[in-house]
């Protein structure tokens, strides 16, 4: 899923400073699961903004709404009436949701309240880790299901760099495992280390022509 993090409060305050009536729009899918932009987080941010005005900052009115998926126009359409009531929208969805909202309501400024960070998974309660770089040329069949493109800090394809720390930790962070040590251990367990001994030529970094656009084949 897509992982995001709430922006710092001060940055949000600066973005919305010129506006008096705001819609805080959440998304109930990925960003809800990573505690960044679901219904609960919309409620928390709305309370913080209301608290601001009780502390003497300017007067604003805040509406709250959360849709199932903010990256789908049909679902964002449900918000039309509310959007018409406000000066601006503060979206707590991922970048894709923010842009869908902005495209649907072109006459309203739409601001991001979160930073979209990566595609990942929850490793444990409250900790999410990056898993996929959406490179368009999946390599996981050769690496025991561990992606070196994003889980190696340098995206190396032919094994670990020489900067690995003692115990198989990453050069840039002793808290992170060297992806190539993880790959080595996984492949060793499966008796498939030959895969690691193979030479992998330079990757096609243009597998997805950016900006990405995929047309489904006709059913």
């Amino acid at each position, binding site marked *: 899923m897509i992982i995001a993090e709430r922006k710092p409060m001060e940055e949000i305050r600066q973005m919305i400073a010129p506006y008096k009536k705001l819609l805080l729009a959440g998304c109930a899918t990925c960003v809800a699961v990573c505690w960044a932009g679901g219904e609960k987080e919309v409620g928390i941010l709305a309370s913080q903004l209301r608290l601001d005005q009780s502390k003497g900052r300017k007067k604003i009115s805040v509406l709250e709404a959360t849709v199932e998926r903010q990256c789908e126009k049909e679902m964002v359409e449900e918000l039309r009436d509310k959007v018409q009531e406000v000066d601006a929208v503060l979206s707590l969805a991922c970048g894709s949701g923010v842009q869908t909202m902005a495209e649907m309501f072109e006459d309203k400024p739409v601001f991001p309240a979160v930073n979209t960070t990566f595609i990942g998974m929850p490793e444990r309660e409250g900790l999410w880790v990056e898993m996929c770089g959406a490179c368009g040329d999946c390599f996981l069949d050769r690496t025991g299901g561990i992606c070196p493109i994003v889980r190696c*800090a*340098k*995206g*190396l*394809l*032919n*094994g*670990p*760099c*020489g*900067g*690995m*720390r*003692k*115990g*198989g930790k990453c*050069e*840039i*962070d002793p808290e992170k495992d*060297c992806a*190539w*040590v993880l*790959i*080595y251990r996984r492949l060793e367990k499966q008796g498939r*280390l030959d895969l*690691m*001994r193979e*030479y*992998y*030529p*330079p990757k096609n*970094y243009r597998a997805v022509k950016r900006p990405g656009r995929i047309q489904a084949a006709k059913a």
Partner: protein
Amino acid sequence: MATPFRKILKTKDFVVTAEAAPEKGSNVSKAIEHIELLKDKVDGLNVTDNQSSVMRYPSLGVCLLIKEHGGEPILQVTCRDRNRLAIQADLLFAYSRGVDNVLCLTGDSIDVGDHKEAKQVFDLDSVQLIHLVHTLNSGKDMAGNELDGGIDFCIGTTATPSADPLEPQLIKVEKKLKAGVNFIQTQAVYELDELKRFTEFVRTVDGEVKILAGIVPVIGAKMAMYMNDNVPGVFVPQHLIDELAQAQKGTGVAKGIEIAALMIRQIREEKVCDGVHIMFIGREERVPELLEASGLL
């Protein structure tokens, strides 16, 4: 004129290279000083490529200075700052100006350097970079286009004999050897046994490649601990840190030279490998003293 490095590798019993780290800025007087001091005392001078991800005068720039001053340069190329187009172009440039030794490295992460917000490249990794040099050597570019005026580089790479765990590193070394390299300059080694274990492995894959052991003299316990925490791939063992901690104040550099010289002598006497690569970071002017203490001058 210096003897071509590839000839030295074939003919000399014990090969010695040293590192020349470019300065930050366009003033090359210190680089020239180091070149003049070392060019006739070692067989090749490596020039680092934005070492530790810190922006500096370019490797190729100092390599050209070495050529101009009659030394033998080894161009270090990392994969961090340039994509495949830029690397190929730089190699053509280097070769056209007489720089024909290249050391292929991955490069440190942007995170350890002084431009921490930069976009890091790593379009290629070090194994792919070695293949790239061979492709250029064959007269074609990576896209398969013919080159008008090819290149012929003597190719080297690096390895970390003290990596833990070692096996994943060795798999990569094997890929580098199979890609084809003339020499390996290892990361700093402080334990002879680790170096022996590494050279034994290399010999099972490639009997021809020349192995130069990386020598980084440590001049104090504090520096050693700093290096262990901050310099990727460097592991100074605790017994050396303890030895340095007991050295009298003001004798750190001399002690560091003494320890490094002992290591070099052992490597040479026991024929552990084919030579040494000296990285006396920030103290290039003391390299002759180390060479003398090692019996190499």
